[in-house]
């Protein structure tokens, strides 16, 4: 058999659709012809057609020029991969990368090892005698454990000794008083319109009465006079309104000042009261 015959029947040979006799002859030829064997390998898509190193260099070069080296992305998922938490398809992709990347492969191997080794580091032997020492100390603790009343008294004494206790007690007392008795409310300031409304009504009524006596022909002069009076009155009214607002605002702020000083005053008195109380307690305890 010659190479031309082999090439002609190569497709049938790969797809196994040729007669057995032809197939045997082609196999004999394949055994002795390197060129046809290479051709056969290419037709079958054998992976070892290209040397491994060449393939790696080629793949790396393509990746660098397209999507970039996928190692950082693989490392994001490496922990989930080693824990078996990745989906099958994605795990297959990561596995494929690991087959070709020794650095990521080493990291994955180490992650697997660490997940075995780290839990073993949870315990350490504290050495002989540790248990006996703990038991001795806790036994002493139990023996010297005071009664409930003594513990309450000790806790109270400790609380009294704290420098900020009077402050806390006074604050709590003031808060309690304010919450119990409530905060005095201040009446709303916005009363100026209401206050001025009767004045305006009275003015209109007076003007209406005075205008009612005039005949129509003689009306021009008195009306002008009255209009001047109205203008004067209106400007006075505006002045009065401003004055009223100012007075109310100043009264309000002084009321707020007075009210806001009340809790402060109470707090200071409560603080001094609690301080005196503590001194009394201390004296009482020291006598005991």
């Amino acid at each position, binding site marked *: 058999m010659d190479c031309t015959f082999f090439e002609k029947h190569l497709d049938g040979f790969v797809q196994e659709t040729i007669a057995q006799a032809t197939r045997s002859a082609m196999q004999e030829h394949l055994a002795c012809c390197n060129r046809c064997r290479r051709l056969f390998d290419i037709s079958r898509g054998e992976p070892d057609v290209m040397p491994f190193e060449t393939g790696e260099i080629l793949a790396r070069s393509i990746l660098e020029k397209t999507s970039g080296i996928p190692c950082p992305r693989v*490392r*994001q998922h*490496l*922990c*989930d991969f080693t824990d078996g938490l990745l989906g099958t398809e994605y795990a297959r992709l990561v596995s494929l990368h690991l087959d070709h990347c020794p650095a990521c492969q*080493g*990291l994955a191997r*180490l*992650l697997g090892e*660490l*997940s075995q*080794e*780290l*839990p*073993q*580091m*949870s*315990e*350490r*032997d*504290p*050495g002989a005698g*540790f*248990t006996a*020492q*703990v*038991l001795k*100390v*806790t*036994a002493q*603790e*139990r023996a010297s454990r005071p009664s409930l009343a003594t513990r309450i008294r000790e806790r109270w004494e400790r609380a009294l000794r704290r420098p900020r206790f009077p402050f806390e007690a006074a604050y709590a007392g003031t808060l309690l008083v304010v919450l119990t008795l409530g905060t005095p409310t201040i009446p709303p300031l916005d009363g100026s319109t209401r206050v001025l409304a009767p004045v305006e009504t009275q003015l209109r009524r007076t003007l209406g009465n005075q205008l009612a006596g005039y005949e129509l022909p003689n009306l021009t002069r008195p009306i002008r006079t009255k209009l001047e009076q109205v203008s004067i009155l209106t400007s006075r009214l505006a002045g009065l309104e401003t004055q009223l607002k100012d007075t109310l605002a100043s009264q309000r702020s002084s009321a707020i000042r007075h009210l806001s000083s009340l809790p402060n005053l109470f707090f200071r008195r409560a603080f001094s009261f609690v301080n005196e109380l503590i001194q009394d307690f201390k004296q009482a305890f020291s006598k005991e």
Partner: protein
Amino acid sequence: MDLDLLLQRCRERDELAWEALVRQFQSRVYGIACHYLGSAEDARDLAQDVFIRIYNNLNSCPNAQVFLPWVIRITRNASVDHIRRAKVRPPASDIPAEVAHSLAAQGVNPEEQCALNSRRKLIHRALQQLSALNREVILLKEIQGLALEQIASLLEVPLGTIKSRSNRARLELAEKVLALERGGAAGGVS
């Protein structure tokens, strides 16, 4: 014995039950203290204090399911308090030799024990190179086996932060170990 029953007896001040509880958890408490303090002596004293706290507050632990996280929380808080009091950070150096020797598992032959010790020393050195939060996440999750929610609650850090830190810290630790291995190998060659 069932831990719930053991705890119940300890609450009733049964001395034998308390001894069993101490023996069951002393290695773990001591291990955590060693990780935080880095000194065997300090860790031993702290572990003893932790057991006294546990003894005095047994009624605060509701059941056996949360006992281990509770113990870890007490140990961690006591360690942090100790570090604050001493006003020093945990040493970045290697763990002391006596601690390293005590790391050995029982029933391992001397060669294996030596390899195990050097390996654990390496991991410990790599751990010291991590950030404080990453180191704690590794200690609490990977070493002590706490759940992410428990770690978030213990460290008072959002759960999302712990989740994202967890894998990153593991990967960082693996990279550090790998670098130290390579450094060691290179040092050995040269």
